[in-house]
């Protein structure tokens, strides 16, 4: 566990006044606040650092302890044991942007010196109802999973949460599960659980909105003379008629064979098939001769 220089984090020296600390913290907070830097994990991490630095340096008691024992935090533990201080039973500061749920908002260094609770938490532990913390989770699904409505069980802070994922969920889509976040305090409402879906790309099908795209290979003879091929779609095999003289790269659209439209029963996008013509290889002498004869007719 490395020592953390809270003064350095806030760009201050040890003589900084309370006002200097407040100003430095707010200035950095305006730059790094997660609400202003959505999806920026680096900014989020830095904000937690400045938050922690502020938590310690803005509290006279903590600052004194930090100044005294900071670089020798192990002695601080002994100091704690000797004084038999009881940890506050308060909860952590409300932070919906706390990143992945289950993560502590404070470093191991902070926890070893001050316990897991913030002063704000301690102040908030009265008989007042207070809303619980919001949690964020990510759920990875294959394209084929996202094609059908199905049940999924998530483990959130040791609890299993069973959800129904509606067919057609999109990559990056976020759903809110009300009341599945942290428990409220003193009978306050629980926070919410936000689940962000990540759809893993499929080797065969590409998805754009509700449309699916697939490449279908045609042998030269079917491409030239026309015929019928069987194509696997996500809803089963379909037979496709291929027109004579179909060119390489020709596209055909199969209405309603694409991806289901989210929460719209029975509505589907289209499947766009791109034909690629396979040139025969390993021809026999006779076949080559026939191709030469064919070429002469051009």
């Amino acid at each position: 566990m490395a020592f953390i220089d809270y003064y350095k984090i806030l760009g201050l020296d040890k003589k900084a006044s309370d006002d200097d600390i407040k100003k430095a913290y707010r200035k950095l907070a305006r730059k790094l606040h997660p609400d202003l830097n959505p999806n920026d994990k680096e900014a989020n991490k830095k904000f937690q650092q400045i938050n922690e630095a502020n938590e310690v340096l803005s509290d006279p008691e903590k600052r004194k302890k930090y100044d005294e024992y900071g670089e020798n935090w192990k002695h601080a533990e002994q100091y704690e044991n000797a004084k038999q201080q009881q940890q506050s039973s308060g909860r952590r500061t409300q932070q919906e942007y706390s990143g992945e749920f289950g993560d502590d908002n404070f470093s191991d260094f902070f926890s070893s010196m001050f316990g897991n609770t913030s002063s704000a938490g301690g102040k908030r532990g009265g008989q007042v109802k207070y809303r619980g913390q919001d949690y964020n989770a990510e759920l990875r699904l294959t394209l084929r999973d996202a094609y059908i409505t199905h049940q999924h069980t998530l483990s959130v802070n040791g609890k299993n949460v069973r959800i129904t994922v509606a067919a057609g969920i999109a990559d990056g889509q976020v759903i809110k599960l009300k009341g599945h976040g942290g428990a409220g305090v003193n009978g306050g409402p629980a926070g919410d659980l936000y689940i962000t879906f990540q759809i893993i790309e499929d080797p065969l099908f590409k998805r754009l909105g509700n449309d699916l795209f697939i490449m279908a290979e045609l042998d030269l003879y079917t491409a030239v003379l026309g015929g019928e091929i069987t194509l696997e779609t996500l809803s089963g095999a379909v037979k496709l008629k291929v027109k004579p003289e179909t060119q390489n790269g020709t596209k055909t659209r199969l209405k309603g064979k694409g991806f289901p439209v989210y929460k719209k029963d029975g509505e589907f996008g289209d499947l766009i098939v791109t034909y690629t013509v396979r040139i025969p290889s390993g021809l026999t002498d006779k076949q080559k001769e026939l191709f030469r004869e064919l070429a002469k007719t051009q």
Partner: protein
Amino acid sequence: MDTELFAITDYCSVHQIDAAFIESLEKEGLILVVNKDENKYVEEEQLHMLEIFTRWHMEMGINTQGIDAMHHLVARLKAVHYELDRLKTRLRFYEE
């Protein structure tokens, strides 16, 4: 079903903020305050945004007018991010 109400005095005591801050948010139309039995409350649905505004105020020292402007800008930022993600998906599709 009745919406749960949270007393503003309790909220202010928990967050150690002045009730005038909540009043100014209400004046700017950023939150809705419910008057009942001579007391002021916020509905549970409002609590989430109120906590966000309180954080902005306490952590960044933003005043109410600034919160109003930031609220709009953050909404726009989120919309731009959404559009960026959508365009990245399209670009990846055409690049492959």
